[in-house]
């Protein structure tokens, strides 16, 4: 009796709850797409046919120790046919599970896709090596080389993270890398000091970024256009100075002293991990530090909370007393400095002189890594590693002589990029206000 009384009052709980139920229902109504399960199934089948059924009956050998390690591990020997078949069956299992989840209207979890990619790459590797003329590669060398190739990508995508998280799209990563590489070369040559070169690279990257920040934030010019124009501008200016100044006097302007590889005693001799973590140049160590610092900064500090708020909902940040445009300006500048350091890797570590277009489009791959890594520094790091891996695999595999034409192998990094950006790993959602200038009021 008393319940009927209370339920007839205005503002009674029942209709209120009804409203909440309805809202909850619409929230859970996010459609679960067929894209991921279909992709996975297709790749599992490719793996079954090529890496499994059509694999050569040869043993592939993967070395995991290098000569300088303090203990030697035996190389892993896998029969290409058996290994490929087994992995393909696992892949099919994962794909089937994804389809099963889809029929139940459940999303495919992230770990499943990651596991799928890892297994697929392993299957691919076994197939490629197993079919080669000399079916043996050094796994340790492959991974260490991937990290090396990934260094500028990681810095580039960190720059992207820093910019996009405050709501500015940074297409100019390529220009920042190139500007950093050029400045590092010329300054290090003139001062004969690689550390000053490194510093100058950061300043150069920041300077490129400041132009981007000024035009996109203060003058509200379309960010994509400013970015593209900056890339062309930096390429033109460095190219011009290279052919007029550097070529004319190579000794004075284009022979920078390199940054040496610093081996940390003992630790660098640990098999596999040693060369990756403890046998790096200063720039390589800075990369690890930068990834961690940016991640901790973004997600654990006051600075990061404000940065993310500015990139997601600038007006909300403004009403809480945060200066949106200043935050954007300094973050974009910082991003440029980070990319500049990445650029110095080309001229101070990888090669000991500057050449035209030395960055070779890696700024754009870094952009892909940023999206693939879901605007997260750690995600971007691993995405960049994957691209570095594809890049390195391509050159190693060409050396050991595979049946696959080298042109196809050369496509690998870009194929991976396209698949990644197409959203294979779930739907990636960038900062909501990315690319949108903020005008008060």
């Amino acid at each position, binding site marked *: *009796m008393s319940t*009927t*009384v209370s*339920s*007839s*009052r*205005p*503002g*009674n709980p*029942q*209709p*209120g*709850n*009804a*409203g*909440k*139920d*309805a*809202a*909850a*229902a*619409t*929230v*859970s*109504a*996010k*459609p*679960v797409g067929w894209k991921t399960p279909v992709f996975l199934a297709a790749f599992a089948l490719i793996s079954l046919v090529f890496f499994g059924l059509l694999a050569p009956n040869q043993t592939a050998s993967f070395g995991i120790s290098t000569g300088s390690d303090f203990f030697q591990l035996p190389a892993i020997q896998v029969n290409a046919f058996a290994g490929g078949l087994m992995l393909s069956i696992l892949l099919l299992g994962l794909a089937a599970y994804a389809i099963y989840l889809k029929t139940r*209207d459940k999303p495919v979890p992230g770990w499943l896709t990651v596991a799928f990619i890892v297994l697929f790459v392993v299957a691919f590797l076994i197939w490629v090596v197993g079919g080669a003329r000399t079916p043996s590669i050094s796994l340790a060398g492959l991974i260490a080389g991937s990290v090396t190739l990934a260094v500028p990508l990681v810095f580039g995508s960190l720059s992207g993270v820093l910019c996009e998280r405050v709501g500015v799209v940074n297409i100019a990563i390529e220009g920042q890398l190139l500007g950093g590489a050029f400045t590092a070369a010329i300054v290090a040559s003139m001062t004969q000091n690689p550390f000053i070169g490194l510093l100058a690279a950061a300043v150069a990257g920041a300077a490129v970024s400041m132009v981007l920040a000024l035009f996109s934030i203060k003058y509200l010019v379309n960010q994509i256009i400013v970015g593209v124009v900056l890339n062309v501008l930096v390429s033109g200016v460095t190219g011009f100075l290279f052919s007029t100044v550097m070529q004319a006097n190579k000794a004075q302007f284009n022979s920078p002293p390199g940054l040496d590889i610093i081996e940390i005693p003992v630790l660098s001799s640990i098999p596999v991990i040693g060369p990756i973590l403890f046998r790096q140049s200063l720039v390589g160590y800075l990369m690890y530090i930068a990834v961690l610092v940016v991640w901790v900064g973004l997600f*654990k*500090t*006051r*600075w990061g*909370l*404000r940065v*993310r*708020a500015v990139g*997601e*909902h600038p*007006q*909300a*940040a*403004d*009403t*809480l*007393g*945060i200066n949106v445009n200043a935050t954007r300006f300094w973050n974009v500048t910082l991003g440029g400095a980070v990319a500049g350091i990445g650029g110095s890797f080309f001229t101070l570590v990888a090669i000991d002189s500057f050449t035209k277009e030395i960055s070779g489009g890696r700024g754009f791959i870094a952009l892909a890594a940023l999206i693939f890594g879901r605007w997260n520094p750690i995600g971007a790091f691993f995405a960049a590693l994957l691209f570095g891996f594809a890049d390195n695999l391509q050159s190693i595999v060409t050396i050991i002589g595979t049946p696959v034409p080298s042109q196809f192998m050369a496509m690998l990094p870009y194929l991976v990029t396209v698949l990644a950006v197409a959203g294979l790993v779930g739907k990636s959602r960038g900062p*909501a206000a990315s690319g949108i200038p903020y005008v*008060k*009021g």
Partner: protein
Amino acid sequence: MVRVLKLELRGITKRFGTLLANDHIDVVVEPGQIHCLLGENGAGKSTLMNVLYGLYEPSEGEILVDGKPVSFRGPGDAMEAGIGMVHQHFMLVPVFTVAENVALGAEPTKAAGFLNLDETRRRIKEISDQYGFDVDPDALVEDLPVGVQQRVEIIKALVRDAQVLILDEPTAVLTPQETDELLDIMRQLKSGGTSIVFISHKLREVKAVSDTITVIRRGKVVGTAEPAASTTELASMMVGRAVSLTLDKAPAQPKEKTFEVRNLTVIAPNGQHVVDGLSFDIARGEILAVAGVQGNGQTELTEAILGLQERVHGSILLDGQELLGRSVKEVLNAGVGFVPEDRSVDGLIGTFSIAENLILDRYDQAPFARGISMSPARVLENAKSRIEEFDVRTPSGALAAGTLSGGNQQKVVMARELSRPLRLFIASQPTRGVDVGSIEFLHKRIVAERDQGTPVMIISTELDEVMELADRIAVLYKGKLVGVVPAGTSRDVLGLMMAGIPPEEHVHTTQAAEAADTTTSTSDAEGGDHV
């Protein structure tokens, strides 16, 4: 330590170029009061509050806190002075948790700038418990219903020790039930010592909670009123002329039933039946109002009729012809007029001129077009007569539709849809976000269309509107039809139907309730003047 804060605005003037948004406005907010700023959309209420909150700098005038003049250079200063604001469009980051949103801008930190969200969680819990908010600090804001998001906004202000809380049109986004809950929260906050500046144009709510009412019209204070003043009195102060709040309409004279919906089911992409086996009909010369809490299938129902939904089963017959499976254009050509629920997204193209918006559905037909050529002169001519007929307040039909106020935008949409002979007229939320003066006008036009013999379907979440316009009322709950009842059905019965309880069952529950009412409950007395 309870600070009590007296807030005074003296001669506040704000100009945007030549536009005078606020003209020497004086308002005094006494401590511990609910002070209502009543005025139509575009009267300058929000501008005034943005000045007070430091978002705009006043062109003239001063703000006094406890008798001392202050100047706010930004919202940070205003918050420092004890002023908090809940904006009409929430200022919450959707992908942040409640705690992150609350902490933002005034983050408790440990050493080296590291966030201390535990401290924020504790404060949220404290406030949540005090006012019975039931807010989970770790929930993502985008997953929360609108009503709860609003509470997060209130918590945000309270965490910053706001002594004066500005609520800018807080009920615009709420269902009737959520509105009543909010009014209760406001009373609680007041008894806790917080003063509230309540900005609204909804008379029922204003009368229910205010201590003092300041009426603003065209940027000026036109007077103050007591909450005891009658709604007609308040409405005429607000609009500046006598308005009739009750619609004069002749009883419906329904003729033959020309619109029929049979077993209509709409399936959402996730497989949910968002409209579930609906059957109803509408006669010529009759208004059927579809009531229900937002999100119970109303949107999908109208979209299905118009041909915008993909997975639809059943049958929709207009004049004996099947509409289902036809393209939107074919449906419109069959004589269906449609006013969508969100005019700025689906009803208008903001960057197009008013004249162009007025012919969006007939741009390719005579007299506006011949072959591939259009006649801009005829488009403008048409605009001129429509603007006059529908009293759209604009200097020219060539202006962008986006520059109009909400009420005038709605008049443009309505003018477009009603300016051709119709066989069925559907209006979804016809007066949402529209000022009182325009509501009266729009309602009259809807009734006029009915009297011309068109079957009319109104979808509204505002119970007042439903009760005012309807000849019959259909109530939706979770995509199902709870029942169709005649006009004049009581508010309580409709409220229960909106919660999914069919009318047969509560004929006797309400009787029981009425019997109990005589002995209990003062809240029903307040409920009485809701009608």
